[in-house]
């Protein structure tokens, strides 16, 4: 039996040459002692593979039509157990891909692996990162629920802010001047054909470069990269201490990749795919569009940016960031690689992680959004069951004050907490503030009667710490 298999294998190799072609790839020498930090690229790759296969499976049932996509997704999610699992795997696979590519990039940056001769590895990787984010955004839109519909508008609105080409770009996104019959099919085409095809081409080049330029050796303090001598030194290292990629460091990649697949499947099984929102009806205005978790930090950034700087953040910042990332290996392609000798690099990574992490937490909290669901204050919080204070509390809720201000834990966080406002402001100050408005607060002079104002002020004056 084994002999027969060997014969078939020999025949295939003789006529097809696939094994002969693969052997040098598997056996090419790599530096020794690569360690676990080197598996992040493979993890990103396997996440993409998950996306491709689950995406193909989902596409066999999903109908990319504005009037039918939602129904097919509902069927996939609620009627077909495997469909639900695959949707979940596609979602968690996307999350894994974003997470892994972020960590991979951070590791490459910290280890200085973008330096000579691997500048193009880094540049192609940066483009791949942007393609992955674009895949994430377009994938969220294919969910085609209320959130997706409004996310398209938000995306088009942001594109519209780009000078000169903004309008055309926004219409390109919408598929016309408004949302219409082709909006979803365009995104489907971009998400399923254009971006993956571009990505596979670029990824092939990225992997080719990894083989061609070699896997970077772990950095060592006091061993700078000298472009004049590096290649010769690297080849010497491989000759002296190199180990074949398979099986030496590759076993770690295999374990990590299996870990990604199993984790994604477990998350999909236990947590499922993201729930579908309301149907995609632009006339249902109780929508609260927000991106998937990996772009929440950007959502928060837009909310917290001063209006005067907004165009800079939306238009200029991504452009500058892209240019800086792409240009990085061109200007800093030599010198020390070890993070201990590159404190600025460590600081940049820490600062970036801290900024994104903080923005992410703020985005989860979204304290700038009015709390439309807040319930009227209960009598226990008001401290009265009738009378002026009780009336004032009713007006506080009815007039939307409570959407932005909390009292005793009830209400929004957009404005200051007013639980003890009676300690800080007197009646005259409250009147002035309510009638004229304040920084980031509307004026109520034209919409509040004198009696309602009196009730409201009376109620607020009772909000004291004692």
């Amino acid at each position, binding site marked *: 039996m084994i002999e027969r298999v060997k014969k078939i294998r020999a025949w295939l190799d003789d006529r097809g040459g696939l094994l002969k072609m693969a052997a040098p790839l598997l056996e090419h020498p790599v530096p020794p002692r690569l360690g676990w930090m080197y598996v992040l690229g493979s993890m990103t790759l396997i996440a993409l593979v998950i996306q491709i296969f689950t995406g193909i499976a989902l596409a066999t049932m999903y109908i990319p039509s504005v009037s039918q996509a939602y129904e097919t997704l509902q069927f996939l999610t609620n009627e077909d157990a495997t469909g639900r699992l695959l949707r979940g795997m596609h979602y968690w696979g996307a999350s894994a891909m974003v997470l892994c590519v972020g960590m991979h990039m951070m590791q490459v940056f910290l280890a200085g692996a973008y330096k000579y001769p691997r500048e193009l590895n880094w540049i192609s990787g940066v483009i791949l990162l942007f393609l992955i984010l674009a895949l994430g955004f377009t994938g969220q839109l294919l969910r085609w629920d209320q959130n997706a519909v409004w996310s398209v508008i938000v995306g088009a609105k942001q594109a519209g802010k780009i000078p000169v080409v903004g309008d055309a770009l926004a219409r390109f996104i919408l598929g016309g001047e408004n949302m219409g019959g082709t909006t979803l099919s365009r995104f489907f085409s971009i998400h399923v054909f254009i971006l993956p095809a571009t990505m596979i081409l670029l990824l092939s080049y990225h992997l080719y470069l990894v083989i061609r330029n070699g896997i970077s050796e772990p950095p060592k303090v006091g061993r700078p990269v000298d472009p004049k001598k590096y290649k010769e030194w690297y080849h010497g290292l491989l000759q002296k201490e190199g180990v074949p990629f398979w099986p030496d460091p590759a076993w770690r990649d295999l374990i990590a990749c299996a870990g990604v697949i199993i984790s994604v499947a477990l998350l999909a099984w236990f947590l499922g795919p993201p729930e579908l929102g309301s149907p995609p*009806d632009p006339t249902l205005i109780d929508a609260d569009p927000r991106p998937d978790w990996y772009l929440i930090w950007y959502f928060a950034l837009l909310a917290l940016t001063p209006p005067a700087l907004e165009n800079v953040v939306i238009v200029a910042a991504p452009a500058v960031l892209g240019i800086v990332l792409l240009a990085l290996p061109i200007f800093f392609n030599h010198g020390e690689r070890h993070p201990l000798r590159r404190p600025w690099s460590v600081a940049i990574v820490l600062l970036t992680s801290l900024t994104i992490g903080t923005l992410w937490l703020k985005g989860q909290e979204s304290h700038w959004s009015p709390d439309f669901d807040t319930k009227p204050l209960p009598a226990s919080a008001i401290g009265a069951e009738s009378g002026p204070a009780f009336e004032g509390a009713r007006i506080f809720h009815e007039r939307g004050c409570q959407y932005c201000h909390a009292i005793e834990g009830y209400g929004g966080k957009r404005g200051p907490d007013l639980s003890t406002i009676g300690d800080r402001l007197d009646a005259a100050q409250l009147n002035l503030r309510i009638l004229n408005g304040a920084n980031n607060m509307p004026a109520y002079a034209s919409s509040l009667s004198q009696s309602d104002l009196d009730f409201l002020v009376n109620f607020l004056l009772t909000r004291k710490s004692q």
Partner: protein
Amino acid sequence: MTEPQAGDSVPVPGRRRFLYIFSSALAALAGLVLGLPIVSFFVSPAYRKQAREWRPVGKVDGFKIGETVEVKFLESDPLPWVGQVGTSAAWLRRVAADEFIVFAINCTHLGCPVRWLAKAELFMCPCHGGVFYKDGTVAAGPPPRPLHRYDVRILGDQVEIRTSPVPL
């Protein structure tokens, strides 16, 4: 250097040059023939203008003076399969017997749908907390300008609004 003779299998430089230019040009032309319609089909929505059409949104008597209500209308040039997505909403305010204002529901910050809080007489945006007064002017938050207004007219006993692109 000897000149190539008639019957030589090596093409003369002139012929070789001609074939090089001709084949390259033909390949470029074929590329254009394939690529132009695809690219133009893909990007044409970015440049296609839709008609501005008047759409009825309700009878004049159906709106109370001083009230702001949501109205729905069909966008212009809807494709046959567009379904509910071809319908848009707007906020209509009857200011006086013969005066109506219709606001786009899109916040001027990033386009999210603003909600009308009747008792507070404010429009509020759920995304980043933009607030507008009942006349559409900015009251608070990040929006850079007032709510977009649709053209509106009274035709017979109907209030009509004119479709327009999503305000960007």
